[in-house]
C-alpha cells in the first residue's frame, strides 16, 4: 500500500524513498514520529534533554541504516526498535540520570484545594513508582498505556508472543501498584532500583 485512504503517503512508502536516496522524505517521517518517540524516551529516561538527544540519535541511525530497511514490517515498529537500541547504548556508556526528587511532587508550590492536592500527590508518587519500576516493566507500561500500542505490535517489537506480553503487562502493573502503595505508606521508601538502569534479567 502506497497511500492511506485519506490520500496521505504511508510511512513505509516514505521510508522506501529515503532508502533510495530521497533524504528529504526523512523530514516528513520526523514530523510524524518525533513527538511519539520523544514521549516514549522521556518517560523511559525521566529526562527531557536526554530524550531529545536520543530522538536525534534515532533519526541519525535511520539515516545511516536506511539501506537495511526491507519494507517487510511496519515502519513505526522498526523505528521503536531503533529507539530501544539507542536508549540501551546510551546508558551503557553513562550513569543513569538522577532519580526524580521529592521536590517534583510539588512543582508549582502554590496551595491546591484538598482533593486536588491529594490527587496531585498520588499522581506524583505514581510517577515516582513508575521510575522505580524495573526498566523492562516500565517499557511495557509506557508502550501500552502512553503509546497505545496494540498487543501484537508490542509482541513484534519485543520478539515475544502476544500471550507473553499479556503476562508481562499483568506483572508490571502489579509491581507498579505495590511500589506505589509502599511509597504511600512511607514517602521516604526507596528501592535498590535506579532510574534508567538496565534490566537485571
Amino acid at each position, binding site marked *: 500500500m502506497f497511500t492511506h485512504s485519506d490520500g496521505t503517503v504511508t510511512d513505509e512508502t516514505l521510508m522506501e524513498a529515503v532508502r533510495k536516496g530521497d533524504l*528529504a522524505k526523512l*523530514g516528513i517521517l*520526523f514530523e510524524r514520529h518525533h513527538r511519539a518517540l520523544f*514521549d516514549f524516551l522521556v518517560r523511559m529516561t525521566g529526562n527531557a534533554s536526554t530524550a531529545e538527544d536520543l530522538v536525534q540519535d534515532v533519526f541519525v541511525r535511520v539515516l545511516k541504516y536506511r539501506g537495511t530497511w526491507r519494507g517487510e514490517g511496519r515502519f513505526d515498529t522498526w523505528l521503536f526498535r531503533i529507539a530501544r537500541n539507542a536508549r540501551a547504548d546510551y546508558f551503557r556508556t553513562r550513569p543513569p540520570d538522577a532519580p526524580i526528587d521529592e521536590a517534583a511532587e510539588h512543582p508549582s508550590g502554590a496551595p491546591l484545594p484538598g482533593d486536588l492536592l491529594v490527587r496531585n500527590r498520588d499522581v506524583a508518587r505514581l510517577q515516582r513508582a513508575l521510575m522505580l519500576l524495573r526498566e523492562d516493566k516500565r517499557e511495557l507500561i509506557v508502550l501500552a498505556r502512553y503509546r497505545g500500542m496494540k498487543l501484537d505490535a508490542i509482541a513484534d517489537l519485543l520478539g515475544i508472543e502476544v500471550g507473553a506480553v499479556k503476562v508481562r503487562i499483568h506483572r508490571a502493573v*502489579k509491581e*507498579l*501498584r505495590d511500589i506505589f502503595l509502599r511509597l504511600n505508606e512511607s514517602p521516604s521508601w526507596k528501592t535498590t532500583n535506579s532510574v534508567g538502569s538496565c534490566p537485571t534479567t
Partner: protein
Amino acid sequence: MENDKLSRLLPDDVDRREAEGLDATWRMLDGIDAPTPDSDRMRARLDAVLDAVEHAAPATPPRWFSRSGADGVRFYAMQGLAAAAVLLVGVAIGRYVVPDTTRPADSSSEISAMRSEMRELREMVSLSLMQQQSASDRLKGVTWTGQLDRPSGEVISALLDALMHDPNVNVRLATVDALERFASREDVRRAAIDAVDRQMSPLVQIALIDFLVKTNERQSAPMLRRLAQDRQVNTAVRSRAAWGLQQLG
C-alpha cells in the same frame, strides 16, 4: 484509546476483582504528564544532519582510475596480480592458521564496519552542529565530540578553531573541557597556551590556566609569569596565573 481498559490487556485467567484493582492504577497513569519536545530545535538539528550528509564531498575517484593506454593496462595487470597474491595468502592463512570460525568472523567484521560508519556519521553530526548559528547547537556539537571514540584530526581542528574564534563564552568553555581528552597532543597544548593571551573572557582564561596546570605544561610558565605581572590583566586571572606558576614549580 483501545488500551484505556487494562482488563483487555491481561491474560484471561486473571481474577476479575484483581483486574479491577489494577485498573485503578492503570487509569491513574493517565494523570502523569510528559514534557513536550522543542520540535523546532530538534527539526533544525535534523536538517543540519541532512544538509551535512547531502553536501558531504563525493568520493573522488582515485588517481589511477584515470590512467589510460599501455601504462594503464600494465597498472591494472599489476593490480590483478597483487590482488590474486593477497587472495592466495588469505586462503592459506584461513586454511592452516585460523580455526574454522568463518561465520562469526564475518558477522563481527560486519558489525565493526557498521560501528565505523556510525562513528563517521556521529563525527559529521558533531562537526555540523559546531558550524550552526545557534550557540546552543554549537555547544551540543562540542559536547557530542565527547561521545566519539576516536575523533579524527578534523574534529580536533574544529575544537581548536572554536576555542580561538567562537563568539560565545559557554561554547569556548565547553571546548576547553572537550580538549582535555587530547591533552597528550602537543598541538593542543600549544594552542591552549596561545589561546590564554587571545581570550577576552577571564572565565575562559582561568579554565585554560587550569587545563595547562592539569596537563603539567611547563612551556606555559613564561606566559603565566607575564600574566601574573601584568597589571592590566583581570585580577582573578592574574592570581590564577600566579597559582599556576606555583603548581608547575
